[in-house]
């Protein structure tokens, strides 16, 4: 099955399409516009141009309504509700869902991916470690039962070992839940290992895009982003 998510135009003109159920990585240096691209998709910044999700234009919609279409955002800084418990954070992820019975099942499934969150389910989320909060942010997005997950620098501030664990689980989630992912990363090597396709953004424009395997071999990418 092939379905294009359509084209996005943001900043100075960013254009890319995503394959359904695949992982796309957005690479680029600081300030290239990666985070803004994600924010544009979920209606957090003013946008000109067209963003389509499963063929439906979503430009100019409110964030709250975009979420209801099945787009879950794992924001930079993780967006934890610090004073609520871990489980309350997760329940909020499913706030817009009407199928209460499945929510209970999904909660268990999320706990299966991240057993550490289950251990801390009644703990105030602000007391979790950075890695645990990132897992919580991914889990909260997963509780939406999303069609598309936007992940903003999931590796930021985490120890390499934790990053590896997290990316492994993201891969599993992508395969098992059939959910598309758009991952913004500065850690290009990790991102290209995870992704099926990738786009390189420089100062608000897409300068290169293709399959992750191709990009990994590309000389310019290797020099600028992989560092060898």
């Amino acid at each position, binding site marked *: 099955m092939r379905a294009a998510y359509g084209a996005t135009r943001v900043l100075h003109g960013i254009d890319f399409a995503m394959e359904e159920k695949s992982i796309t990585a957005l690479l680029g240096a600081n300030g290239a516009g990666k985070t803004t691209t994600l924010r544009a998709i979920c209606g957090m910044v003013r946008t000109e141009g067209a963003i389509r999700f499963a063929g439906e234009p979503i430009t100019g919609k409110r964030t*709250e309504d975009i979420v209801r279409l099945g787009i879950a955002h794992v924001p930079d800084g993780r*967006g934890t509700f610090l004073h609520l418990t871990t489980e309350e954070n997760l329940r909020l992820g499913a*706030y817009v869902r009407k199928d209460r019975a499945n929510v209970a099942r999904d909660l268990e499934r999320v706990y299966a991916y991240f057993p550490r969150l289950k251990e801390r389910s009644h703990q*105030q989320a602000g007391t979790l470690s950075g890695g645990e909060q990132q897992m919580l942010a991914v889990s909260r997005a997963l509780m939406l039962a999303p069609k598309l997950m936007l992940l903003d620098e999931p590796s930021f501030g985490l120890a390499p070992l934790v990053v590896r664990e997290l990316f492994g689980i993201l891969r599993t989630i992508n395969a098992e839940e059939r959910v598309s992912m758009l991952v913004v990363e500065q850690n290009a090597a990790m991102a290209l290992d995870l992704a099926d396709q990738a786009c390189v953004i420089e100062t608000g424009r897409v300068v290169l895009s293709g399959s992750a395997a191709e990009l990994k071999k590309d000389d310019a990418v290797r020099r600028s982003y992989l560092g060898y």
Partner: protein
Amino acid sequence: MEAVLLQFLAGLATGSIYASLALALVMIYQATHLVNFAQGEMAMFATYIAWALINAGMPYWAAFLLTVAFAFVFGVLIERVVIRPVENAPVLAVVAVFIGLLVILNSIAGWIFTYTIKSFPSPFPAALGIRYMSPHQVGALLVTLAVLALLYVFFRFTPLGLAMRAAAQNPVSSRLVGIRVGWMLALGWGLAAAVGAIAGMMVAPIVYLDPNMMAGILLYAFAAALLGGIDSPGGAVVGGLLVGVLENLLGAFVIGNELKLVVALVLIVGVLLVRPSGFFGSVHVSRV
């Protein structure tokens, strides 16, 4: 000893009323980080509505429910119409809006209902009275405790209650999980106004109905909220009961009735000086 018990129980009864008004203050504070100075006048205005309904021949409890519903809608409207436009304004601007609301509501109530002091009926039958407490004291205590319990269940166990807490804490993340933050804040104002209206109707038979009746009560409620910790709903309740009991005991045995209100003021200044976060004001732990 009996006299002490009597004053203690009377303190619990009025304390529970302070507690519910304090809780209304805390609910607004959690969302806006400001104290709504008009909370008392909103409650007073609602109590006048109840008085008018009862005088027009409506049975007490019907008037009670209708007033609570009115106060809820009124609270939502105030947030939507008056508070929303100053949402991102500097703190002082919002405080000025609160004080403006206070003066306006006070004047409108005086204009419509005059400043003459009116009596307000108590709905509780004589059989409710116990040896040390009047029927109204027992009734008011029961009603406010029931309201507090309902609020606790609502905020703790319902998805909407959870969403309201989330929206107050972290609006950005709340939008990202699909919560309509603006409506949650309006709902919070509605609930706070409804709780305040109940406090007003419960306290009116004791202090009598006039446009200035909540001035003192709001001070006690403010002291209660501060004592418990201005961001802690549970603290507001404990603080309210404490302030009520303290006020009654000190008033009866130590400083006399005339200086009762001073207790509230001393508490406010004392808490701010010694322990600004109050008894239960959370010192949040967070790691980044």
